[in-house]
């Protein structure tokens, strides 16, 4: 094992953590509520670019980050109002199609506002490099990992240890029964979207910091990788989503680092299919959470 291998592991953890953050949002929306929001990656993209604009206008990094997160929350809420609320009593296919349309729409708007070029992502976050022997990592790597761990525990606590979380899980099980016992689904569904949005926005901002530049096209990849991580992790299990996100990041990085980038996505999706064949409920999912 040489130092380059350990460096690649650090790269993989950083990349995988960003997938994990998006996957956690998917776990909340799709895994628990069954709301398949295919515009979730674009929510991340909106947060990323709004943060960049705020930084360019002179806001310090914490304020720019907060602005980006709020914008992502607003975008997520708008998606709920436009793509899900009108179709609560319809088949799930209609909202899915609606979110695909929303994804393309948001991407088009972003291209008009920020251009189609990849843009250098300078938002005032001090990127400090640390060396431990031959291994190097940056303050961005630390921030990505810490943010992922903190958000994972916070969300798990919210969903499994609070009254709000119990309400969310109740409406996920059966809306009518939840109503009968006095739970109002509307506000809770809105809350899930409002929580998922800023998390995606922060994930996008961290990806921008890690990748050095961003383009309005990166949302689609975030959507696919986030969904794969959610399925692979076990739908409702946030620890599973994080674990799967990290695994995807590591596989991608090791493919590029030791074989060829040409097989990067192909191998990830092939492993995903294989993993589901062997364990359909996902890595940390249970059979009881699976539905037909």
């Amino acid at each position: 094992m040489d130092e380059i291998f350990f460096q690649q592991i650090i790269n993989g953890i950083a990349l995988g953590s960003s997938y994990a953050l998006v996957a956690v949002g998917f776990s909340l929306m799709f895994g628990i509520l069954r709301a398949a929001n295919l515009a979730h990656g674009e929510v991340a993209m909106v947060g990323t670019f709004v943060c960049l604009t705020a930084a360019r206008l002179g806001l310090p990094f914490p304020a720019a980050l907060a602005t980006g997160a709020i914008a992502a929350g607003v975008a997520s809420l708008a998606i709920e109002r436009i793509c899900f609320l009108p179709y609560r009593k319809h088949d799930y296919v209609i909202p899915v199609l609606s979110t695909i349309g929303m994804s393309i729409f948001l991407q088009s708007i972003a291209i008009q506002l920020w251009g189609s070029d990849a843009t250098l992502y300078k938002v005032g976050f001090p990127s400090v490099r640390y060396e431990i022997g031959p291994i190097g990592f940056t303050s961005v790597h630390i921030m990505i990992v810490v943010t992922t761990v903190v958000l994972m525990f916070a969300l798990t606590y919210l969903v499994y240890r609070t009254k709000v979380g119990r309400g969310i899980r109740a409406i996920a099980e059966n809306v009518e029964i939840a109503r009968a016992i006095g739970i109002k689904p509307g506000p809770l569904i809105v809350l899930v979207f409002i929580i998922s949005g800023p998390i995606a926005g922060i994930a996008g901002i961290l990806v921008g910091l890690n990748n050095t530049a961003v383009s309005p096209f990166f949302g689609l990849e975030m959507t696919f990788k986030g969904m794969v991580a959610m399925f692979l992790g076990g739908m409702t299990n946030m620890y599973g989503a994080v674990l799967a996100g990290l695994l995807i990041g590591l596989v991608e990085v090791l493919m590029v680092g030791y074989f060829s980038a040409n097989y990067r996505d192909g191998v990830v999706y092939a492993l995903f299919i294989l993993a589901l064949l062997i364990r359909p409920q996902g890595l940390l999912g249970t059979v009881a959470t699976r539905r037909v």
Partner: protein
Amino acid sequence: MKKRNLLWRILVTVGLFAVVIASGCAQETKSTPSASPSAAPASQSAAAASTKATPKTVGTEVKIGFITTAGGPTADLAPRARLAVDMALKEVNAAGGINGVPVKIVEAEGRNDPQEETKVLQRFASDDKVLAVLGSVSAEPAMVYPLVAKLKLPLITSSAAPSDILKASAPYGFTFLLPSTDMARASIKQAINTHKSKKLSSIYVGDLPNGRTFGEQTMQVAKELGLEVLDPITIGARDTDFTAAVTRLKGQIASQGADLVSIGHAGERVGVIVAEMRKQGIQIPVLAAYSAVTQGMINSGGQAVEGVIGATSWADDNSDPLQAKFVKEFEARAQTESPKNTKADYSSAYQYDVVRLLAKVMQDAGVSNAPENLAKDRELVAKGLLSVKDFSGVGGKISIGENGQVIREVFTIIVKDGKFKLLNRCLPSNC
């Protein structure tokens, strides 16, 4: 009563829509005088009058097809290309078009996809009946170029087309881009002279034919020039995260002593890769592919791309008066039009030159533009392009060789203070 009210509202709404659409159409007609001969500027009318006695060219407009690539890794070039084409079009039409008939650009999006591009070419040939096509095509020219020989439709692009592909498309296929081997030779020689480089690492796009060709040709030329060439590192055309590839490069430098790296990708991606290199503490000199010597590289790479060497046919400090005029007008228009605040570069200069060159060739060849002479006119344009010699292009003289390959000087450049500074210029045969 309610029904009548509803009907009334629908009628009013439809009426309003009709008014809005009609006014929009009128506005469009007003804003594009070149599309209508009756609205042509004075100089154009004068030119038309002077040719009235022997009308060489007939019809209301001479059509040229324009393939854009708003998607994919070269998407950053598309808006600049569009602005440059529009500039040249206005100039050409203000000078009288083709024997008094204005030129019209018919634009279609090729999506950076060879299948879509072949569809666009077929549509240009049979439906739009254009006399020639310009623009850029995807990184798979082998799927696109040979079609123009079959369609007998002149195609002149700013994209790389190897000599065997040009041969298969002769005499209708042309490229304005210098051969990649010539540009690789010029930039590697420069790196050897400046940095005394000995071992080359290469990073290039492995999942596109043009990316692979660039990478393999660069390595071949480096070997010919005496460099030791290490195993290449391939990246994906759609990748945005290059940390793993750069770490792999770091490993090559540490274990095998690479002291020069060539990067083959579109400009904005090369900027990102170089920025990542600097972030990971890699400071060896960088050679950028010809496709990377664009404003996109400087925008995405910032300070990190300072010192990057490349070969192209553009240098910001070129004293050519035509370039100075082009840059001034391009950047003035970019203040108010899309793409805002962008700068002129080789790709925009190419498109500007191609429109002007096609207009000159059509004028000189005396195309008739009559529907019954469409095939003959296209043949005249192709022959005319093959005989181009010392055309005054942006940055220098341009000729076209018998294989459809442009002949012009190679400029070796270095990025300094966010600009492409000229290091050396030479004809490919002398580089």
